[in-house]
């Protein structure tokens, strides 16, 4: 606690902040090589989604009966399907659907779960007991069954797919967040916050929620992958995004099954896109946790 120590600490702080952004990113990639791979997959998807209009060589919904079932080649890099639509263009536009559904469902689901989970831990007692039993009921359905049930009630559309994926995410996130928040609840700073006269909402949102960011972010990023997969499954079953919207799950349906032996590229490329996206988000999620949690951050 001497003056000399303090100065040196602040100096180190300054030195650290003088590192350029590129140096910092390079550091991060060295420490998290897998995370970097995930990051680039995610980044590629985001770029594809945003600049789909410029990147896609053809209109993804245009039927060209002169160019049906063409194998991958110079004109159509990834081939065409049975209606002559360019697979690559459809994959690029499909990234838009996948990301939109993935981000919307996981963000809303995880955030609701975060607030409810922290609330449950903070109030405890009877509220916690009843709330957790309700969550148990939701949890007892597998993700895809629950989503299927919801879509069949509301009817298939992009918006309903998002709702259908969001609802089963809430208890999953709430459960994990609650178990972390229970530990946080016992740390004196929560009592200290109450002793300073803060209200329940402020303690839950401002004091406790940021402390469970680590599990929340892991859940969030793994949810994006799961949501993309679930959306693809629902679309494949005909209960998700509807034609002619380009969506990866939809691309596996119909012609893909029919032509799987003779024209395998119709099924292979969307399948690869789905796997890669889920893989990328999961890798990225793990490193986001390591980097963002101040308790794990290297000093």
């Amino acid at each position: 606690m001497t003056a000399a120590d303090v100065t040196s600490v602040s100096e180190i702080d300054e030195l650290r902040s003088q590192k350029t952004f590129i140096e910092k990113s390079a550091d991060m990639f060295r420490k998290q090589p897998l995370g970097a791979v995930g990051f680039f997959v995610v980044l590629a998807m985001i770029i594809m989604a945003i600049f789909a209009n410029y990147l896609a060589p053809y209109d993804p919904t245009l039927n060209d009966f002169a160019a049906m079932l063409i194998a991958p080649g110079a004109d159509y890099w990834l081939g065409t399907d049975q209606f002559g639509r360019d697979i690559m263009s459809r994959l690029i536009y499909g990234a838009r659907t996948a990301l939109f559904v993935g981000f919307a469902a996981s963000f809303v689901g995880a955030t609701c779960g975060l607030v409810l989970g922290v609330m449950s831990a903070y109030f405890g007692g009877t509220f916690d007991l009843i709330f957790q039993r309700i969550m148990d009921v939701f949890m007892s359905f597998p993700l895809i069954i629950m989503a299927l049930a919801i879509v069949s009630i509301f009817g298939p559309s992009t918006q309903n797919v998002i709702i259908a994926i969001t609802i089963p995410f809430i208890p999953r996130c709430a459960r994990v967040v609650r178990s972390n928040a229970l530990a946080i609840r016992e740390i004196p700073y929560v009592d200290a916050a109450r002793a300073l006269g803060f209200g329940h909402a402020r303690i839950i949102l401002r004091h406790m929620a940021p402390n469970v960011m680590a599990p929340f972010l892991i859940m969030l990023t793994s949810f994006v992958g799961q949501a993309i997969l679930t959306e693809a499954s629902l679309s494949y079953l005909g209960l998700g995004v509807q034609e002619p919207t380009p969506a990866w799950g939809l691309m596996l349906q119909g012609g893909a099954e029919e032509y799987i032996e003779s024209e395998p590229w119709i099924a292979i490329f969307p399948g690869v896109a789905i796997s890669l996206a889920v893989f990328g988000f999961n890798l990225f999620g793990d490193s986001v946790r390591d980097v963002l949690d101040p308790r794990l951050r290297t000093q």
Partner: protein
Amino acid sequence: MTELLKIQGLKTQFFTSAGTVKAVDGVTYDVEEGETVAVVGESGCGKSVTALSIMRLVAEPAGRVVDGNILFQGNDLLQLSEEEMRKIRGNNIAMVFQEPMTSLNPVLSIGLQLTETVQMHLGVDDAAARARAVELLGLVGMSDAERRLDQYPHHLSGGMRQRVMIAIALSCEPKLIIADEPTTALDVTIQAQILELMKNLTRDLGVAMIIITHNLGVVARYADRVNVMYAGKIIESGTAEDIYHNPKHPYTLALLKSVPRLDQPRGAKLDPVEGQPPDLARLDEGCSFRPRCRYATDACAASFPPTELIDGIHYSACFHKDKLDSPMKEAS
């Protein structure tokens, strides 16, 4: 001096599967404006629960204040609504906790934690709150306050964090600070610094303080008045001088003898208080210190000794208070 806080017959109980735990059992004491009152006792004797009862922060539904009054500036805190109580906490009565390492939120900056309280209770704007935060950090003796505001708790040492906690406690100019073992987690030299700081600040700002501790050394130096607690009851109270030089309860005497003293020969063995504190769920009619007391007689088992005045403000609850040896004689 006028009376700031008056606790009358406070009873706080915890209802557990093992029975009703009488953590605080009829505690009565008061605090005058600007005064420092110490509450001393072993772990688990109800010191902290008394403090939490004042703040109305006893963990419900297991724990509940079942009887008594807590008058703060004439208003009974136990009758206030939660909303009204929230305006008192941090604003009129502030608390400094035992663990400086964990009583600051690790993900919020020091500045945010300091300004948040000020903004909420005093309703000032960002700039004014920040200026106040800088002023407060200066007040608790932290250099380079501007930069500190952007730092996080993990940048600071234990002593520094406790200084920040004190700054937060002082931020809304409370009338009373409850310090629950503020120095237990700190090393000895830092303890002295922090206590000295709290003493000076409370004197300069005219803030009353309840200091909860098990360290009699702290009491002697910093407290105007001392309450010794055992098994949920105050068994002796008086000025620091009364307690030190003329203890009238065997427990106080035993506590004093268990503290190392500079005027004893080096290598002299400490005399610990024999036995364990009683199970607060299973107290009987008699004196709760009886099983550990060398003066105990049959009378002690029959009923709890009444609290009797000795002289001035010195009270003791013991049938055998006149038979006690002076601690000075024992030491020599």
